[in-house]
C-alpha cells in the first residue's frame, strides 16, 4: 500500500517536473514553445511514428526485433501513393499501405519463426531485399518517364487536422483492444514468456506468430499512409539507411517500457512519442542544428532509456 502511494507520488513528481521543464523552456525561448500552433505541430509529428512504435511494441512482446519496419513503410507508402492516384482514391491509399505491409510483416514473422535465424539478423537481410525492391520500382518509374508515387494535394487529407486525429483514435482503440482485450493479444504476450512455456499452456505458437505479423502489418500500414499523406512522397533508400526510420519509435517504446508499471504500454507509447518529439522540437526551437547534435541527443536518450528499462534485468544479456 505504501508502495502504491510512493508510486503515485513518483508519478506526480515526474509529471510536475516535465511541466516545469516545458514552462521554463518556453520562457527561455520567449514563448515560442507553448504556442497553439507549435503544440499542434508537435502532436501531429508524434502521431505518425506512434503507429510504428505500436507495431514495435507487438514485435517486442513476442521477443523479436524487426529492423525492417522502415523499409516496409517505404514500400507500403509508395503502393499507397500509387493506388491513391488511381480511381480507388482514399480507399486505395489505405488498402495499398495496409495490404503491402501486412503481406511483408507476415512474411517477416514467418521467417523469424521458421528459419531460426535470430530475428534481428534476419530482419537486416530483409531490409536489403525490401530496399532493393523499392529501388527497382523507383528506377522503373524513372525510365518510363514517371517519378515515384506522389500524392496530389487533394488526396492528402488523411494527415490533416481532423482526419489524422480520427486515424489516431481508431489506431489507439485498435492497439489498446488488441493488446489488452483480445485472445490474440494475450497469446502474443504469452509468447514473450518463452515459446516453450507458451506451448505448454496450449498456445499454437506458429499461428500466433503469423497473426502478430498481420497486426503489425496494420499499424505499419497506417504509419505508411500517414507518412505518404503527410510528406506527399517517400523516397526510396539504399544501403540499409531505411533502418534510421525506426530509431525514434524505438526510443519511444523503450521509454514506454520504463513506465510500464504505471501506465499501460499502449497508452504510454503516444505519451512517450510526444515526449521524444517534444525534445526534438525544443532542440529545433533552441537552434540546435538538426542532422547533427539532435541526433547525438537521440542516441543519448536511447541509451539512457535502455539503462532505465534494463535496471532490474537479472537474465543473461547479450
Amino acid at each position: 500500500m505504501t508502495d502504491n502511494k510512493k508510486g503515485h507520488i513518483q508519478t506526480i513528481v515526474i509529471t510536475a517536473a516535465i511541466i516545469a521543464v516545458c514552462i521554463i523552456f518556453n520562457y527561455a525561448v520567449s514563448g515560442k514553445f507553448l504556442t497553439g500552433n507549435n503544440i499542434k505541430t508537435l502532436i501531429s509529428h508524434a502521431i505518425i511514428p506512434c503507429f510504428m512504435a505500436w507495431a514495435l511494441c507487438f514485435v517486442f512482446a513476442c521477443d523479436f526485433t524487426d529492423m525492417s519496419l522502415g523499409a516496409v513503410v517505404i514500400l507500403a507508402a509508395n503502393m499507397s501513393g500509387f493506388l491513391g492516384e488511381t480511381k480507388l482514391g482514399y480507399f486505395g491509399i489505405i488498402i495499398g499501405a495496409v495490404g503491402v505491409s501486412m503481406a511483408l510483416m507476415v512474411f517477416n514473422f514467418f521467417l523469424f519463426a521458421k528459419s531460426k535465424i535470430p530475428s534481428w539478423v534476419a530482419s537486416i537481410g530483409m531490409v536489403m531485399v525490401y530496399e532493393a525492391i523499392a529501388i527497382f520500382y523507383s528506377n522503373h518509374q524513372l525510365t518510363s518517364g514517371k517519378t515515384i508515387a506522389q500524392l496530389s494535394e487533394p488526396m492528402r487529407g488523411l494527415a490533416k487536422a481532423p482526419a489524422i486525429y480520427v486515424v489516431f483514435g481508431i489506431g489507439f482503440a485498435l492497439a489498446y483492444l488488441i493488446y489488452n482485450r483480445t485472445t490474440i493479444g494475450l497469446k502474443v504476450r504469452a509468447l514473450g514468456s518463452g515459446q516453450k512455456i507458451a506451448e505448454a499452456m496450449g498456445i499454437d505458437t506458429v499461428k500466433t506468430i503469423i497473426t502478430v505479423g498481420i497486426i503489425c502489418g496494420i499499424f505499419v500500414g497506417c504509419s505508411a499512409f500517414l507518412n505518404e499523406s503527410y510528406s506527399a512522397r517517400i523516397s526510396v533508400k539504399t544501403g540499409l539507411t531505411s533502418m534510421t526510420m525506426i530509431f525514434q519509435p524505438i526510443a519511444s517504446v523503450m521509454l514506454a517500457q520504463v513506465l510500464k508499471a504505471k501506465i499501460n504500454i499502449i497508452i504510454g507509447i503516444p505519451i512517450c512519442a510526444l515526449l521524444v518529439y517534444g525534445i526534438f522540437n525544443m532542440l529545433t526551437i533552441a537552434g540546435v542544428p538538426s542532422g547533427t547534435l539532435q541526433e547525438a541527443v537521440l542516441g543519448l536518450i536511447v541509451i539512457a532509456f535502455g539503462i532505465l528499462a534494463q535496471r532490474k534485468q537479472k537474465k543473461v544479456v547479450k
Partner: protein
Amino acid sequence: MNHILEVKGLCKYFGSTIANKNIDFTLKRGEIRGLAGENGSGKSTLLQQIAGIYLKDEGRMILNGKEYDPQNPLDAKNNKIGIVVQELGVLNTLPAGVNVFAGNWKQFSRFGIINMKKMYQKANDIFETYGLMKIPLNADCAEMSIESRKMLELARALSGNPDILILDEVTQSLSQNNREMLYQLIARLQKEGKTIVIITHDLEEMLEICDNITVLRDGEVITTKACSELDTDEIKRLMVGRQVNSAYYREDAVADYKEEVVLQAEHVNVPYTLNDISFELHRGEILGFCGLSDSGIHEIGTAVFGLSHDRTGSVTLTEGNILIKNELIAGKNGMAYVPKDRDGSALMIKDSILNNFVLPSTTELQGKCMYLSPAKLKRFAQNGVEEFNVKCNGIYQKMQDLSGGNKQKVNLGRWLLKDLNVLVLDCPTRGVDVSVKAYIYHVMSEVKKKGLSMILISDELPELLGMADRLIVMKDGCIKGEFIRGNNFTQEALIEVMV
C-alpha cells in the same frame, strides 16, 4: 463404471532413461490417491503424461471409458483434468488474473473483445469459491512470490472445474495456513465427487489425507494399497525396496575430518531464501545439506561461492582470512562450484570435451602473454579423459553427444584435476546411473582423503547419508538441525526434522 481413469502399459523414455516402465494405474471416482516414491522414481513423469504435458511413448489411457490421448495441456483441461506441476509454470509477461485462464481466453470474448472485468471477476470467483489465498490479480507474475504463483497455478487447474485434480508437490512450498486451506479444499472436492492425485514427500501428511497410496520405484508401480493398511515405515520400505550395496557409498561409519576449519560462513542472509545461516567446514570434510526443494539448500551453494548479489553476512576462507565477496575471489582462492543444472549452467554443451575440460585450468596452463599451447591443452584433456574414464570418441567430440553420466564425469573431473581447497557440489549425481554414481562416490572419497573439503548439497537422502561426515538439515531457509555421521544418522531421523 467406478473407474474414472485407467492407464495401461504406459512407458516413457528420456533418451536412455526409462522414466516410466509399463505402468498400470487406475483411479476410482471420488478417491484421493497419493503417489509415493524416491526422487526420480517417475511420479511426476506419470502424472504429466496424464495431464498432456509429456506425450506418452507407449501404452494407452482410458478416461471415462473412452480412449484418451492428450496432445497438449489444453486437451487435458478440456477433458476435465487439471494439474499443478512441480516446477513453476506461469506466464511471466501476463497478469495473474489472465494467467488463471491461460490458453482458454476465448470463453470471455464477445465479438472478439475479451471482457477483462468478467475474466478478473471469474478469476476472483475461483479464488473465493475455493477459498484460495488472495493475490493481486492485475499484477504481472514476474515478481510474485513462489507461494502466490502456486496459488495461481492451483486456481488455473481449478478453473477448468476438473474431475481429476493433480497436485505435484504443492504443499512443500505453502505456508501452514495455506496448507490447512488446501486440506479443506481437497476434502470438499472429494465430497463433490472429484478425484484427486497428490504427490508429497511428507508421508504423514499423505497418510492423513489420502484414501489409497501407489508406490513407485525406478519407474515401475510397486503396489497400490489403502492407507489403512499402511504406515510410514511400510511406505518407506516399499519406496526404497532395494538392498543398498554397502560398497556403494563410503565404508566408514563415523565422521572423519581434521580439526582445521577451512571455510566459515557467518550469518549468511539472502532475501526470501536464506535466513541467518552459519556453519564451519573442516579440512577433509564432506558437509551435507539436505532439505525439501524450497528449503534453501541450493541457494547455500550459490551463496557460499559468492554468486548471490544480495547476500549479507560473511563467508571466509580461514587460510589467509579471505572474504568471499564474489565468484572471482572464490575462483582465485581454490574454491569451485558444481551447479545443479548441468547442461544449463555447468557445461558448454555445444563445445568440445577438450574445451570443457581445460576451461577452469586455463590460468594454470597459460604461458607468457596468456599463451595456451594447443599441445599442452590436448595432453591435459587427454589425461583427464583417461583418468576419469570418460567414454567418448576423442577429446574433440562435442559435449552434447555424451551420455549424462559421462558429461558429469567431465564436469567433475575438470575440477578434481585442479588444486582445490573447497568444492561445492550441488546434486552431483543428478540423472546419473548406478555405476557412474558409484564411481563418483569413489572419487569423492579419494579426494577427501587427500584433504579436500566438500559441501554436498543433494535431495537424495541415501546419498547424503552415505557420503557426508556431517549433515545440516534445512527448512524454510533456516538451519533446523545437524547430524554427525555415526550418531543417529538415519533417514527417519532426518525426515523427522525436514518436514
